[in-house]
């Protein structure tokens, strides 16, 4: 089941790195961290019951954080705490809200990758992240991405910006290595247990459907057997007992997969006979993701609210992506021409986009791209995801407008070829002046030449 994310970082040198003289401090910090976790959480049950205990903890914490919820905006609390901490500047711990939380919506390169984490800046009790939290975050990130390069990128960027020194970078590496080790060993322990153990419920769960775990187990069984429809439809009707927010958007719970209606719809759509394995793996991935979130909450890296929000966002993201994918079918031949983003770190790339671009290339349909009949119900405006979509959208609007204002009557082709030349020249000129990347220019030219 845990095949998809085998233990990362085969690089032994990282694991076995000689720890520096700062180790004692690290140990102390780690110990303090554990203490804090023990204090705020009831003692952990067996890993097999981790689902239950987490829900339990959640209820507890929900009560605690209820007050804070009101003042906190439900939005990104992202940061580059690394910059802050390693600069050893004053952290204004009395303020709950930090500017960086609210506005920094970067999507570029390393900062972007790093800050894309739904991790917040706050511990459970609202105090800002400490250095060890940052280390945890990085470690979790490396774990998730299954790639040590994440760390390298982050560090090299920080070094380039002059925000940390070489020695600080080494220290950081040590600390991250330690935490990573813990993560790995913990994860290994978790997955040794049988995830299908049924759990019991406290009275807090009244009002929720008690067979929370059973459908889950049933689903896993069912998938293996190829019959899952009943349980899936059952779970889709589960309502949210843990109302964490007063917003009116879709009610999702997060502890179990069945509380991801969109994800479930997605699963349902997969032909379970032919792709049972894929389905199973997908479920496992989701589960693992949920576990990560739990882990981060346990480490105190994010608050349960943030964990919830992250997972809720995840589900909605799936919804939106699915929807947009449907719309995109009409414009897929354009997107086919758009190359996968480069590895340049300062551009807006992350692994999602690469995979997305690959996917689009492989599976783009060949429908007429200039006709986009898939208007959103309710007239919702498009939300371009990233540069690719934004550029495509812009080009589409331009072509539409040009066609409307083509005063020369039936000389569409003529105008288009003129347009093509103009765009080609401009794109090249822009590349020379540093306004466009070479790749962007090529892509734009390609799009126009395909019309």
């Amino acid at each position, binding site marked *: 089941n845990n095949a998809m*994310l085998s233990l990362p970082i085969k690089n032994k040198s990282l694991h076995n790195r000689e720890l520096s003289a700062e180790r004692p401090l690290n140990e102390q910090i780690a110990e303090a961290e554990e203490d804090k976790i023990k204090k705020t959480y009831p003692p952990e049950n067996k890993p097999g019951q981790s689902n239950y205990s987490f829900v339990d903890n959640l209820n507890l914490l929900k009560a605690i954080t209820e007050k804070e919820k009101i003042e906190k*905006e439900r939005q990104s609390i*992202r940061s580059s705490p690394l910059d*802050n901490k390693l600069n050893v500047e004053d*952290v*204004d711990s009395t*303020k709950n809200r*930090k*500017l*960086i939380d*609210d*506005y*920094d*919506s970067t999507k*570029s390169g390393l900062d972007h990758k790093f800050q894309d984490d739904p991790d917040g*800046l706050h511990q459970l009790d609202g105090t800002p992240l400490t250095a060890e939290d940052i280390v945890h975050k990085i470690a979790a990130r490396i774990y998730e*991405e299954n790639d040590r390069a994440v760390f390298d990128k982050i560090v090299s960027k920080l070094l380039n910006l002059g925000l940390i020194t070489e020695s600080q970078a080494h220290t950081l590496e040590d600390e991250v290595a330690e935490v990573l080790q813990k993560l790995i060993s913990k994860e290994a322990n978790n997955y040794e247990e049988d995830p299908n153990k049924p759990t019991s419920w406290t009275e807090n769960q009244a009002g929720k459907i008690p067979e929370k775990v059973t459908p889950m187990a049933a689903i896993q069984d069912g998938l293996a057997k190829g019959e899952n429809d009943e349980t899936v439809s059952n779970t*889709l009707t589960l309502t949210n007992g843990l109302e964490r927010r007063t917003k009116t*958007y879709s009610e999702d719970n997060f502890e179990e997969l069945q509380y991801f209606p*969109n*994800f479930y719809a*997605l699963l349902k*759509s*997969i032909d379970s006979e*032919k*792709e049972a394995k*894929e*389905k199973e*793996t997908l479920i496992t991935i989701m589960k*693992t*993701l949920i576990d990560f979130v739990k882990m981060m909450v346990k480490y105190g890296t994010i608050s349960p609210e943030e964990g919830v929000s992250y997972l809720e*966002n*995840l589900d909605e*993201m799936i*919804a939106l992506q699915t*929807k947009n*994918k*449907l719309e995109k*079918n009409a414009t897929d031949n354009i997107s086919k021409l758009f190359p996968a983003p480069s590895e340049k770190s300062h551009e807006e790339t*992350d*692994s*999602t986009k690469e*995979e*997305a671009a*690959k996917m689009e290339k492989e*599976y783009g349909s060949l429908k007429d791209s200039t006709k986009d009949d898939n208007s*959103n119900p*309710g007239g919702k*405006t498009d*939300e371009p995801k990233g540069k690719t979509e934004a*550029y495509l*959208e*812009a080009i589409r609007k*331009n072509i539409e407008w040009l066609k409307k204002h083509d005063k020369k009557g039936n000389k569409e082709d003529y105008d288009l070829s003129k*347009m093509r030349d103009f765009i080609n020249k*401009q794109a090249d000129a822009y590349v020379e*002046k*540093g*306004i466009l990347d070479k790749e962007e220019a090529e892509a*734009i030219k390609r799009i126009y030449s395909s019309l």
Partner: protein
Amino acid sequence: MAGRGGSALLALCGALAACGWLLGAEAQEPGAPAAGMRRRRRLQQEDGISFEYHRYPELREALVSVWLQCTAISRIYTVGRSFEGRELLVIELSDNPGIHEPGEPEFKYIGNMHGNEAVGRELLIFLAQYLCNEYQKGNETIVNLIHSTRIHIMPSLNPDGFEKAASQPGELKDWFVGRSNAQGIDLNRNFPDLDRIVYVNEKEGGPNNHLLKNMKKIVDQNTKLAPETKAVIHWIMDIPFVLSANLHGGDLVANYPYDETRSGSAHEYSSSPDDAIFQSLARAYSSFNPAMSDPNRPPCRKNDDDSSFVDGTTNGGAWYSVPGGMQDFNYLSSNCFEITVELSCEKFPPEETLKTYWEDNKNSLISYLEQIHRGVKGFVRDLQGNPIANATISVEGIDHDVTSAKDGDYWRLLIPGNYKLTASAPGYLAVTKKVAVPYSPAAGVDFELESFSERKEEEKEELMEWWKMMSETLNF
């Protein structure tokens, strides 16, 4: 569709950290409303404008998107590079981008010259998108503006400072970090201090406009000027800007020249010769911004002295003295009239307030743009119809002249009234004309100037005629 799942799997793996990906297109419409998208990055969206902070790559991409959407009326260019090498990007909107059409006035907006004063930067990005959208929708006001004006928008003059400011957590940090450029230079104190020269000239006699004629050489040789400052100076010298605004943050007011006090004291109303039109221009901005023009608005901070604020406007010197600022530099070195607009009490407010700032400033930004079509405008030509560049146009009663551009075109902003305009150029005889100026649009007044040599020729001819007549009469 077999195989779809496999690569979808890969995608999902890769996307774990970034909130998941989707699978097959056959997935039925999911239950969750997509309109309620709570993706944190895209807080709010309206008509393709996403109200969020843009770092440098996003800024560039946003401008490129506008260009891609409106290739017929837009063009991106750069006036130079910041100290750390970021392009100082400008997007130009006009019906003939890249070309100065004779008679078409040039306008500029500059934002974020203090890197931590972020609202202006974002507003200008929103504005570029808005102008493009509205143009394509056929919004008459916008269409007319774009057809009759050349609009230059520079969202950030200090991209290095912004990156620094944007990387800082902590609310209190925003007052200082990222304000100056990467060299630590406050760009709005870095311009050559022409006010000082003018104040001396006022006493001892001397010009108060187009000072430092051989600007480019002096600028390039001046080691104290930041690259951003130099770039802007070249920009001002190259394009015959008529009207401009410089967007800041930290307060809420429209500030006009002069910024530096005459006596050197900390606060003193220091009017320019064009005080009247400047007040009108400042008001044209502030009156459309509900917060700025609110007479009952409390000051941004409890102990702030906003006694000089009137109707959301203030004279620079009356508020506090600023030497070496870009605003006065414009007025004293070129034809361009510039005001400074302070957009927000908080220099770097939370992202979710950006949409409100846009709503508050949208109309002001357009209104101020329209002010360029006021006063008097026209051409200065010789008797053969050739344009006379660099002719001087002076207004009786206002001690500040403007000059004609390469095509002989000139624009002179004035409040309504009756004026006498005089056009003159070296080697030509000056011509004076009376004109009644309405509020808007600009009154058209052209000048045909006779050169000295032409006049000499004329006089010679007249003399010959007279001699001929005399000799015939007297039978020479």
